[in-house]
């Protein structure tokens, strides 16, 4: 066990890799060990050099045409081969829709644990990695340690900030590993129409729930959003059932951390609330005085969003002039 060393990071998503490097740096510093980025791809030397500037002491670069796009078994075999050989102490893996299954299978091959979707990571007095994750549908936060090595944790995008690049030294080490044949075949990829804006980065979010009657009524929220420089969000049913949006806020959607979150016609079911815990101030507008959203709001208004929203927009316009 004691031979394990180093904090490793991996994500097939480059931006997320940089975020992992930022957090990994902190952990490696505390443990007085090296920070390693594993980089699987094709024709990516330049980006590998850049990872050093973002904090990597070493970059293990596996540059191979078979790795050009994400293929589960190919990437899995690379990570498994390297981890089995070099025995990292900690592996942080980006929790994307491809990365999380990858981490789960890697942990299984390495016969170790895995703590998924960590929104906080720390090192305890015994040098163990402690991952914090939301559980029980948003009712609780669990702190989890691994009993086995490597200690694997997956980390969602934008849970941690990107570090500042610096002029520093590090090594990019090219390695050859045996790459496993994919067991699945990708037939087609259709880009998803997303709004393009990143709601996790918004300072102000005006969100609507099933209290909104028609799609066009979004305009009410957009008006307020314009005055406050904010973005419009929603609860899951508006995206998944009604298809008025492509993304939503909550446990299974985006976790947001704005200065101001205005929930209009949202009941405040625990899975929604799990996504807004880090908001500085929460305002709730709901017809029903018993709605649970009022229990987690700083300011509550019992009333019809169709009346309150336009009035609030007007009032704020005056204040902000």
């Amino acid at each position, binding site marked *: 066990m004691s031979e394990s060393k180093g904090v490793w990071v991996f994500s097939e998503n480059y931006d997320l890799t940089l975020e992992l490097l930022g957090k990994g740096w902190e952990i490696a510093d505390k443990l007085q060990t090296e920070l390693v980025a594993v980089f699987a791809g094709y024709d990516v030397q330049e980006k590998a050099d850049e990872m050093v500037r973002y904090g990597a002491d070493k970059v293990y670069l596996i540059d191979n045409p078979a790795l050009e796009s994400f293929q*589960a078994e190919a990437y899995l075999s690379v990570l498994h081969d390297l981890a089995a050989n070099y025995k990292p102490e900690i592996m942080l893996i980006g929790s*994307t*829709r491809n990365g999380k*299954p990858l981490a*789960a*299978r890697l*942990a*299984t*091959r390495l*016969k170790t*644990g*895995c703590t998924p*979707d960590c929104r906080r990571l720390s090192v305890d007095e015994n040098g163990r990695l402690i991952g914090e994750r939301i559980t*029980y*549908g*948003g*009712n609780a*936060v*669990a*702190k989890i*340690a*691994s*009993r086995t090595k490597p200690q694997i944790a997956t980390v969602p*995008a934008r849970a941690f900030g990107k570090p500042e690049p610096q002029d520093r030294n590090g090594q990019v080490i090219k390695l050859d590993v045996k790459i496993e044949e994919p*067991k*699945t*075949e*990708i*037939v087609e*990829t*259709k880009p*998803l129409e*997303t709004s393009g804006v990143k709601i996790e980065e918004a300072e102000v979010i005006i969100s609507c729930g099933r209290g909104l009657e028609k799609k066009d009524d979004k305009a009410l929220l957009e008006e307020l959003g314009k005055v*406050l420089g904010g973005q419009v969000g929603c609860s899951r049913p508006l995206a*998944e059932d009604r298809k008025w949006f492509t993304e939503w806020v909550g446990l*299974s959607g985006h976790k947001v951390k704005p*200065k*101001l979150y205005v929930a209009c016609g949202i009941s405040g079911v*625990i899975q929604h609330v799990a996504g807004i*815990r880090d908001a*500085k101030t*929460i*305002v709730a507008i709901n017809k029903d005085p018993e709605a649970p959203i*009022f229990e987690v709001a*700083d*300011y*509550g*208004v*019992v*009333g019809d969003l169709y*009346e*309150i929203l336009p*009035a*609030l927009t*007007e*009032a*704020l316009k*005056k*204040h*902000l002039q």
Partner: protein
Amino acid sequence: MKRIIVCLKQAVDVSQLKVDPATRHLITASAPKKISDFDKNALEEAIRIKEKIGEAEVCTVTVSSEDAKAVLREALAIGADKAYFVNDTGFQDVDTSGTACILAESIKKIGAFDLVVCGESSLDSFSGLVGSRLAELLNVPQITSVRKLSMEGDVVIAERTLEDAYETVKARMPALITVTREINQPRIPSLMMIMRASKKEIVTWTAADLNLPKEKIDAKIEVVEVVAPKTERKKIMITGENVAEIAEKLAKALVQEGVVGR
């Protein structure tokens, strides 16, 4: 005949969980249980495949240290042909690694299969690991986050939801898929279906019936603490004579908080 196996978890109904305000610990022991939501979608999808291809057997497998018969009966009423209940008090502290091992050994004992269907995540732990771990142990191709599924001979074709794209993927069966809630609207069993289900078989196994040396199911993780997050919200209700007055009071409060404007 094709065999489709659905991994069905009995989960804590998180919408009915209570928190002890003094310790912020969850009161899980007395909390009601139900079929994990995504697993209902998994079961529904398996039944739809069966309806489409005609000849197929849909089996469910549930691993639990507690009683779960009500949940299994419900699955049979919804349309599963056979339910396997892997029940042992020794399973109390298993983690995702152990659960996947128990599921893998159970599935091997059930016999040859074409497709294993799991939920993307379970309602209570929401870890989203068990399906992938199981695919690895069974050494079969896996397709995760599936929102559309079809079969052609011994090939599954599935559309996955990624962060920024939909991806269509093919794999040769036997394979494992994990489904999202988008994939279908689960049916609600009728009284007839409930009655018919009472004749269907529940097979119960314990750890001793499976090849499960203790080290296989030893937890690889340690849960250090589980507490309800602190909610320190002001909970100020804004009231007034009319809408304009309420809006004005709220606007003022937000300006004072410093959360609007530059």
